[in-house]
């Protein structure tokens, strides 16, 4: 090896070794683990470990709570992601027309929730959503609406968590979309106006196509993030009421670290990974067909 090649490996080697040992190897092991009956007994003594093929997967497909966790998570993603991106886009449009100084101020304000600690703000929101003395029910009452048992009613717990999640992360995509808006040449709007396009038509035919690549990116990132729902139900509802907020990761955590069914939990993690991966590919394929990517 030349001196330069040696240096290259000396500089990149440690990081690559760490990634291999503590990331790539565990990914492979996760798959192997999901093919075993690893449980509390195996944790004590590895010789109790048995290979069960896809037994954990078929067992999961016969577990009602797993299906419940999947459908809760899909609910969270399908409602939450469009809502979040919609608000991000709306906020980005509001910021776009402002002078640099004002835009900077509002951008910081709207972005603040993104950098906060999820667990700490979940505690705030649990209190805001409190049935008896929460600020949100107080606001509703002054509009003449009856109090809602947000986190205690199986129909409202997930919507409440979605509302919180949207608050927490809309600023992130807002910043990306704002940067996207700034790359759309203003003569395109000029030309559209000359052709007599109204504001909505300008938005529909200039803004949206111009933002398409960014929207694709933002929706993939947000979707992948929303599938990883965990801390919100852990802190706010502990999966309840009547399991209405058990997410896939919450289910994985309980299986793995509460009941020590590490084989089953690994199968859950792998299914989640495959879902995210498949949906990313589908979105990408769908968008590249329409020329966005």
């Amino acid at each position, binding site marked *: 090896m030349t001196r330069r090649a040696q240096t290259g490996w000396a500089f990149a080697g440690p990081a690559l070794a760490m990634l291999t040992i503590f990331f790539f190897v565990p990914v492979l092991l996760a798959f192997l683990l999901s093919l075993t009956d690893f449980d509390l007994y195996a944790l004590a003594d590895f010789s109790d470990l048995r290979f069960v093929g896809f037994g954990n997967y078929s067992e999961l497909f016969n577990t009602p709570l797993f299906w419940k966790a999947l459908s809760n998570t899909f609910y969270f993603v399908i409602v939450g992601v469009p809502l979040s991106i919609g608000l991000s886009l709306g906020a980005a449009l509001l910021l776009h027309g402002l002078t640099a100084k004002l835009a900077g101020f509002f951008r910081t304000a709207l972005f603040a929730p993104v950098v906060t600690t999820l667990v700490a703000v979940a505690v705030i929101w649990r209190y805001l959503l409190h049935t008896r003395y929460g600020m949100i029910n107080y606001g509703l009452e002054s509009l003449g609406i009856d109090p809602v048992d947000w986190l205690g009613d199986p129909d409202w717990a997930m919507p409440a968590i979605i509302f919180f999640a949207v608050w927490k992360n809309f600023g992130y995509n807002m910043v990306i979309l704002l940067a996207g808006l700034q790359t759309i040449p203003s003569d395109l709007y000029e030309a559209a106006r000359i052709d007599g396009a109204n504001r909505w038509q300008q938005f529909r035919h200039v803004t949206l196509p111009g933002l398409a690549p960014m929207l694709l990116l933002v929706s993939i990132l947000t979707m992948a993030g929303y599938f990883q729902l965990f801390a919100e139900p*852990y802190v706010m509802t502990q999966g309840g009421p009547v399991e209405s907020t058990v997410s896939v990761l919450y289910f994985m955590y309980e299986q793995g670290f509460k009941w020590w069914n590490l084989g089953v939990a690994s199968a859950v993690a792998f299914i989640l990974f495959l879902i995210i991966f498949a949906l990313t590919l589908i979105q990408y394929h769908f968008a590249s067909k329409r020329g966005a990517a």
Partner: protein
Amino acid sequence: MRSSRRARFVHFLLLAVVAAFALFPLLWMLSVSLMAPGEASQFPPPMLPDKPGLSAYSSLFETTGITRYFLNSLLIATLGTALSLAFNTTAGYAFAKLRFTGRDRIFQLLLPALVIPAQVTMLPLFLMLKEIGLINSFAGVLVPVTASIFGIFLVRQYALSVPNELLEAARIDGASEWRIFLQIVLPTLTPIIITLALFTFLGVWNDFMWPLIILTDQEKYTLPVAIAALSREHVQDNELMMAGSVLTVLPVLLLFLVLQRYYMHGLMAGSVKG
């Protein structure tokens, strides 16, 4: 753009509504943390404390052991940041500027791995760390933080712009590769180092699931793990919980405000990675 007065009014009204939506929970957290015990548990909920005081903070420090959790978080986030910088700046620079066998192929293999959610690795990683005795240790918390694909990518993109002539000139002068890295490359990488440090610090400080899994002993808890546990014990004690939230959120919020420019740079660089 021409717009009528009414359109401008509506524009600012909407902005104000969105800003209130974003900031109200944070401001209210601060307000409630300054209330007297029990003051926040009434209807209608008070907006501002009757007599602002620090009683919630003093009972937080006296009864919950929060100082310990704060110091744990500070230590773990600081160590994690130092480790992340050590591993990722060297690797990022190597992928940008040093030629070695397999460099480009390895880099192309790293990028798609960004879609693998970290949670997939958590169960085997737990077992591996159990074998080497790192369960319930800060080292165990830090293991997945050290080298990151995102960090390597971030540094590499930036290091590509370091002029080759600068490096060649130093080599001709006989400087060792480490010396070139420390004395020439690192200073030019300063902005991206700040960005990476900020991302790592905030990421480790805010992280919840992995420390929750790996830390079994209460003495070792980080702030988020401790806050989650406290919030189950002190369900009714809103003032105390809000004080705990302030203490957790304030450091990262302040860091972000001071270094916002670097944060946004990292966010944009991260968002073009896909």
